Protein backbone atom coordinates (compact mmCIF):
# COMPACT_ATOMS: atom_id res chain seq x y z
CA UNK A 1 0.00 0.00 0.00
CA UNK A 2 1.42 3.41 -1.02
CA UNK A 3 1.04 5.97 1.73
CA UNK A 4 0.91 9.70 1.11
CA UNK A 5 3.12 11.82 3.32
CA UNK A 6 1.14 14.08 5.62
CA UNK A 7 3.55 16.86 4.65
CA UNK A 8 2.72 16.66 0.95
CA UNK A 9 -0.40 18.82 1.22
CA UNK A 10 1.36 21.23 3.53
CA UNK A 11 4.11 21.68 0.95
CA UNK A 12 1.54 22.39 -1.76
CA UNK A 13 -0.16 24.79 0.67
CA UNK A 14 3.05 26.81 0.96
CA UNK A 15 3.57 26.88 -2.81
CA UNK A 16 -0.06 27.70 -3.50
CA UNK A 17 0.23 30.85 -1.37
CA UNK A 18 3.13 31.95 -3.56
CA UNK A 19 1.19 31.15 -6.74
CA UNK A 20 -1.78 33.25 -5.59
CA UNK A 21 0.61 36.12 -4.89
CA UNK A 22 2.71 35.82 -8.05
CA UNK A 23 2.19 32.94 -10.53
CA UNK A 24 5.58 33.71 -12.10
CA UNK A 25 7.60 33.65 -8.88
CA UNK A 26 11.04 32.09 -9.20
CA UNK A 27 10.15 29.24 -6.83
CA UNK A 28 8.17 27.56 -9.64
CA UNK A 29 11.23 27.45 -11.85
CA UNK A 30 13.39 26.30 -8.94
CA UNK A 31 11.24 23.26 -8.06
CA UNK A 32 9.78 22.54 -11.51
CA UNK A 33 11.52 19.15 -11.73
CA UNK A 34 11.38 18.23 -8.05
CA UNK A 35 9.25 15.20 -7.24
CA UNK A 36 6.29 15.87 -4.96
CA UNK A 37 6.67 13.74 -1.87
CA UNK A 38 6.44 16.07 1.13
CA UNK A 39 10.01 15.34 2.24
CA UNK A 40 11.16 18.84 1.28
CA UNK A 41 8.46 20.73 3.17
CA UNK A 42 10.87 22.81 5.24
CA UNK A 43 13.13 23.72 2.32
CA UNK A 44 10.22 24.72 0.09
CA UNK A 45 8.48 26.65 2.87
CA UNK A 46 11.75 28.52 3.53
CA UNK A 47 11.99 29.46 -0.15
CA UNK A 48 8.32 30.38 -0.27
CA UNK A 49 8.81 32.73 2.69
CA UNK A 50 11.29 34.70 0.56
CA UNK A 51 8.85 35.38 -2.27
CA UNK A 52 6.65 38.12 -0.78
CA UNK A 53 8.68 41.10 0.37
CA UNK A 54 11.63 42.78 -1.34
CA UNK A 55 14.12 42.02 1.42
CA UNK A 56 13.79 38.98 3.69
CA UNK A 57 16.43 38.30 6.32
CA UNK A 58 16.69 35.20 8.43
CA UNK A 59 18.57 34.73 11.69
CA UNK A 60 18.90 31.62 13.78
CA UNK A 61 19.86 31.75 17.43
CA UNK A 62 21.52 28.45 18.20
CA UNK A 63 21.46 28.96 21.97
CA UNK A 64 17.69 29.06 22.28
CA UNK A 65 16.89 27.69 18.80
CA UNK A 66 14.79 30.61 17.66
CA UNK A 67 14.45 31.36 13.95
CA UNK A 68 13.78 35.03 13.24
CA UNK A 69 12.48 36.31 9.92
CA UNK A 70 12.57 40.02 9.19
CA UNK A 71 10.76 41.47 6.20
CA UNK A 72 11.46 44.87 4.63
CA UNK A 73 9.74 46.29 1.59
CA UNK A 74 9.14 49.71 0.04
CA UNK A 75 5.40 49.09 0.33
CA UNK A 76 5.74 48.72 4.13
CA UNK A 77 7.83 51.87 4.52
CA UNK A 78 5.66 53.84 2.11
CA UNK A 79 2.49 52.98 3.99
CA UNK A 80 3.75 54.14 7.37
CA UNK A 81 5.19 57.29 5.77
CA UNK A 82 1.77 58.00 4.28
CA UNK A 83 0.34 57.55 7.79
CA UNK A 84 2.83 60.14 9.07
CA UNK A 85 1.81 62.53 6.29
CA UNK A 86 -1.90 62.02 6.93
CA UNK A 87 -1.44 62.75 10.62
CA UNK A 88 0.64 65.82 9.89
CA UNK A 89 -1.92 67.17 7.44
CA UNK A 90 -4.83 66.66 9.83
CA UNK A 91 -2.79 67.31 12.98
CA UNK A 92 -3.82 63.93 14.34
CA UNK A 93 -2.28 61.89 17.09
CA UNK A 94 -1.18 58.50 15.64
CA UNK A 95 -3.73 56.85 17.95
CA UNK A 96 -6.47 58.82 16.20
CA UNK A 97 -5.39 57.75 12.74
CA UNK A 98 -7.83 55.11 11.52
CA UNK A 99 -5.35 53.97 8.87
CA UNK A 100 -2.94 52.94 11.60
CA UNK A 101 -5.59 51.08 13.58
CA UNK A 102 -7.05 49.47 10.42
CA UNK A 103 -3.60 48.28 9.34
CA UNK A 104 -2.75 47.06 12.83
CA UNK A 105 -5.93 44.99 12.86
CA UNK A 106 -5.27 43.68 9.34
CA UNK A 107 -1.73 42.65 10.23
CA UNK A 108 -2.84 41.04 13.47
CA UNK A 109 -5.31 38.95 11.49
CA UNK A 110 -2.90 38.20 8.61
CA UNK A 111 -0.02 37.19 10.85
CA UNK A 112 -2.13 34.82 12.93
CA UNK A 113 -0.63 31.35 12.55
CA UNK A 114 -2.29 28.36 14.20
CA UNK A 115 0.75 27.45 16.25
CA UNK A 116 1.53 28.24 19.89
CA UNK A 117 5.29 28.46 19.39
CA UNK A 118 5.73 31.72 17.49
CA UNK A 119 5.39 35.45 17.75
CA UNK A 120 4.85 38.18 15.17
CA UNK A 121 5.38 41.92 15.34
CA UNK A 122 5.60 44.90 13.04
CA UNK A 123 7.38 48.20 13.40
CA UNK A 124 5.85 51.35 11.95
CA UNK A 125 8.27 54.02 13.20
CA UNK A 126 9.62 55.57 10.00
CA UNK A 127 12.42 57.29 11.90
CA UNK A 128 13.71 54.15 13.61
CA UNK A 129 17.27 53.25 12.57
CA UNK A 130 16.23 49.70 11.64
CA UNK A 131 13.36 50.88 9.45
CA UNK A 132 9.77 49.73 9.11
CA UNK A 133 9.52 45.98 9.10
CA UNK A 134 7.60 42.82 9.95
CA UNK A 135 9.19 40.26 12.24
CA UNK A 136 8.22 36.64 12.83
CA UNK A 137 9.88 34.63 15.58
CA UNK A 138 9.61 30.85 15.38
CA UNK A 139 10.43 29.13 18.64
CA UNK A 140 11.74 25.64 19.20
CA UNK A 141 8.41 23.82 18.85
CA UNK A 142 7.12 25.80 15.88
CA UNK A 143 5.76 23.31 13.40
CA UNK A 144 3.73 25.31 10.92
CA UNK A 145 6.26 26.74 8.47
CA UNK A 146 3.93 26.04 5.58
CA UNK A 147 1.51 28.59 7.01
CA UNK A 148 3.95 31.52 6.97
CA UNK A 149 3.65 32.19 3.20
CA UNK A 150 -0.14 32.55 3.55
CA UNK A 151 0.36 34.96 6.45
CA UNK A 152 2.85 37.02 4.44
CA UNK A 153 0.60 37.03 1.39
CA UNK A 154 -2.29 38.42 3.45
CA UNK A 155 -0.02 41.00 5.08
CA UNK A 156 1.24 42.14 1.64
CA UNK A 157 -2.32 42.37 0.31
CA UNK A 158 -3.29 44.46 3.35
CA UNK A 159 -0.50 46.93 2.57
CA UNK A 160 -1.61 47.16 -1.07
CA UNK A 161 -5.26 47.66 -0.08
CA UNK A 162 -4.70 50.28 2.63
CA UNK A 163 -2.05 52.12 0.61
CA UNK A 164 -4.68 52.76 -2.06
CA UNK A 165 -7.12 53.92 0.62
CA UNK A 166 -4.76 56.29 2.41
CA UNK A 167 -3.55 57.76 -0.89
CA UNK A 168 -7.16 58.46 -1.83
CA UNK A 169 -7.80 59.98 1.61
CA UNK A 170 -4.77 62.26 1.30
CA UNK A 171 -5.83 63.29 -2.20
CA UNK A 172 -9.27 64.13 -0.85
CA UNK A 173 -7.81 66.50 1.72
CA UNK A 174 -7.24 69.05 -1.05
CA UNK A 175 -10.63 68.61 -2.69
CA UNK A 176 -12.87 70.69 -0.36
CA UNK A 177 -10.54 73.69 -0.52
CA UNK A 178 -10.60 73.68 -4.33
CA UNK A 179 -14.35 73.04 -4.54
CA UNK A 180 -14.97 75.88 -2.14
CA UNK A 181 -12.97 78.43 -4.13
CA UNK A 182 -15.04 81.31 -5.35
CA UNK A 183 -14.37 84.37 -7.44
CA UNK A 184 -12.93 85.14 -10.86
CA UNK A 185 -10.60 82.52 -12.31
CA UNK A 186 -11.50 79.89 -9.68
CA UNK A 187 -13.69 77.93 -12.09
CA UNK A 188 -10.59 77.23 -14.17
CA UNK A 189 -8.71 76.05 -11.08
CA UNK A 190 -11.55 73.68 -10.15
CA UNK A 191 -11.63 72.25 -13.68
CA UNK A 192 -7.88 71.78 -13.58
CA UNK A 193 -8.07 69.94 -10.26
CA UNK A 194 -10.86 67.69 -11.50
Amino acid sequence: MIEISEYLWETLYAIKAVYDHDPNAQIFQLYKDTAIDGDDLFEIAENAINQFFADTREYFNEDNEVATYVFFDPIITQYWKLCDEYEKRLQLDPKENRFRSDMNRALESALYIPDYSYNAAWYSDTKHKNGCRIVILCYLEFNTYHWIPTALSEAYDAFVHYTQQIKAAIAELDQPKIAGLKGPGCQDQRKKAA
Partner: protein
Amino acid sequence: MLLDLHVLQASLNELPSEETVDSSEVNPYLLNEVLRPLLSGKVLHYGDIDYSEFDADDLRVISDYCDKREHVMHGLQRIVNGLVEARASACKGRAFC
Protein backbone atom coordinates in the same frame (compact mmCIF):
# COMPACT_ATOMS: atom_id res chain seq x y z
CA MET B 1 -13.74 -18.50 16.63
CA LEU B 2 -13.72 -20.42 13.37
CA LEU B 3 -13.76 -18.51 10.12
CA ASP B 4 -14.65 -20.14 6.84
CA LEU B 5 -12.62 -18.22 4.25
CA HIS B 6 -14.75 -19.62 1.46
CA VAL B 7 -17.90 -18.12 3.01
CA LEU B 8 -16.06 -14.86 3.80
CA GLN B 9 -14.92 -14.51 0.20
CA ALA B 10 -18.40 -15.21 -1.13
CA SER B 11 -19.89 -12.66 1.29
CA LEU B 12 -17.38 -10.01 0.34
CA ASN B 13 -18.04 -10.60 -3.33
CA GLU B 14 -21.75 -10.01 -2.79
CA LEU B 15 -21.17 -6.59 -1.26
CA PRO B 16 -21.65 -3.60 -3.58
CA SER B 17 -18.49 -1.75 -4.54
CA GLU B 18 -18.41 1.71 -2.96
CA GLU B 19 -15.98 4.36 -1.81
CA THR B 20 -14.57 3.76 1.64
CA VAL B 21 -14.49 7.49 2.34
CA ASP B 22 -16.78 10.05 0.76
CA SER B 23 -14.81 12.12 -1.75
CA SER B 24 -17.65 14.35 -2.95
CA GLU B 25 -16.19 17.40 -1.20
CA VAL B 26 -12.68 16.80 -2.51
CA ASN B 27 -11.46 18.99 -5.37
CA PRO B 28 -11.67 16.76 -8.49
CA TYR B 29 -8.36 18.02 -9.86
CA LEU B 30 -6.46 17.21 -6.67
CA LEU B 31 -8.22 13.86 -6.39
CA ASN B 32 -7.84 12.68 -9.98
CA GLU B 33 -4.70 14.44 -11.17
CA VAL B 34 -2.63 14.45 -8.00
CA LEU B 35 -3.71 11.98 -5.33
CA ARG B 36 -4.73 9.02 -7.50
CA PRO B 37 -1.60 9.12 -9.68
CA LEU B 38 0.56 9.34 -6.55
CA LEU B 39 -1.28 6.39 -4.98
CA SER B 40 -0.71 4.37 -8.13
CA GLY B 41 3.02 5.00 -7.83
CA LYS B 42 3.37 7.72 -10.46
CA VAL B 43 6.00 10.37 -9.79
CA LEU B 44 4.65 13.91 -10.03
CA HIS B 45 6.76 17.06 -10.04
CA TYR B 46 5.88 20.49 -8.74
CA GLY B 47 6.03 21.70 -12.35
CA ASP B 48 3.25 19.25 -13.28
CA ILE B 49 0.73 20.89 -10.98
CA ASP B 50 -1.83 23.41 -12.23
CA TYR B 51 -2.15 25.65 -9.19
CA SER B 52 -5.09 27.51 -10.67
CA GLU B 53 -7.25 24.39 -10.42
CA PHE B 54 -7.67 24.50 -6.65
CA ASP B 55 -7.61 26.89 -3.74
CA ALA B 56 -5.86 26.71 -0.40
CA ASP B 57 -8.93 25.35 1.40
CA ASP B 58 -9.09 22.44 -1.04
CA LEU B 59 -5.72 21.29 0.29
CA ARG B 60 -7.12 21.11 3.82
CA VAL B 61 -10.12 19.11 2.54
CA ILE B 62 -7.99 16.59 0.66
CA SER B 63 -5.63 16.29 3.62
CA ASP B 64 -8.62 15.40 5.85
CA TYR B 65 -9.81 12.97 3.18
CA CYS B 66 -6.41 11.25 3.16
CA ASP B 67 -6.44 11.04 6.98
CA LYS B 68 -9.86 9.35 6.95
CA ARG B 69 -8.82 7.05 4.14
CA GLU B 70 -5.68 6.08 5.98
CA HIS B 71 -7.72 5.39 9.12
CA VAL B 72 -9.96 3.00 7.16
CA MET B 73 -6.92 1.36 5.55
CA HIS B 74 -5.34 0.76 8.94
CA GLY B 75 -8.60 -0.79 10.17
CA LEU B 76 -8.60 -3.13 7.19
CA GLN B 77 -4.94 -3.90 7.72
CA ARG B 78 -5.69 -4.96 11.31
CA ILE B 79 -8.36 -7.37 10.05
CA VAL B 80 -5.99 -8.76 7.43
CA ASN B 81 -3.26 -9.16 10.05
CA GLY B 82 -5.73 -11.03 12.28
CA LEU B 83 -6.51 -13.41 9.43
CA VAL B 84 -2.88 -13.92 8.55
CA GLU B 85 -1.98 -14.73 12.14
CA ALA B 86 -4.93 -17.12 12.66
CA ARG B 87 -4.09 -20.80 12.95
CA ALA B 88 -5.51 -22.88 10.14
CA SER B 89 -7.96 -25.62 11.06
CA ALA B 90 -8.64 -28.64 8.86
CA CYS B 91 -12.12 -29.05 7.42
CA LYS B 92 -14.03 -31.70 9.41
CA GLY B 93 -16.38 -32.83 6.61
CA ARG B 94 -15.54 -34.50 3.34
CA ALA B 95 -14.43 -31.82 0.91
CA PHE B 96 -13.88 -33.84 -2.24
CA CYS B 97 -15.98 -36.43 -4.10
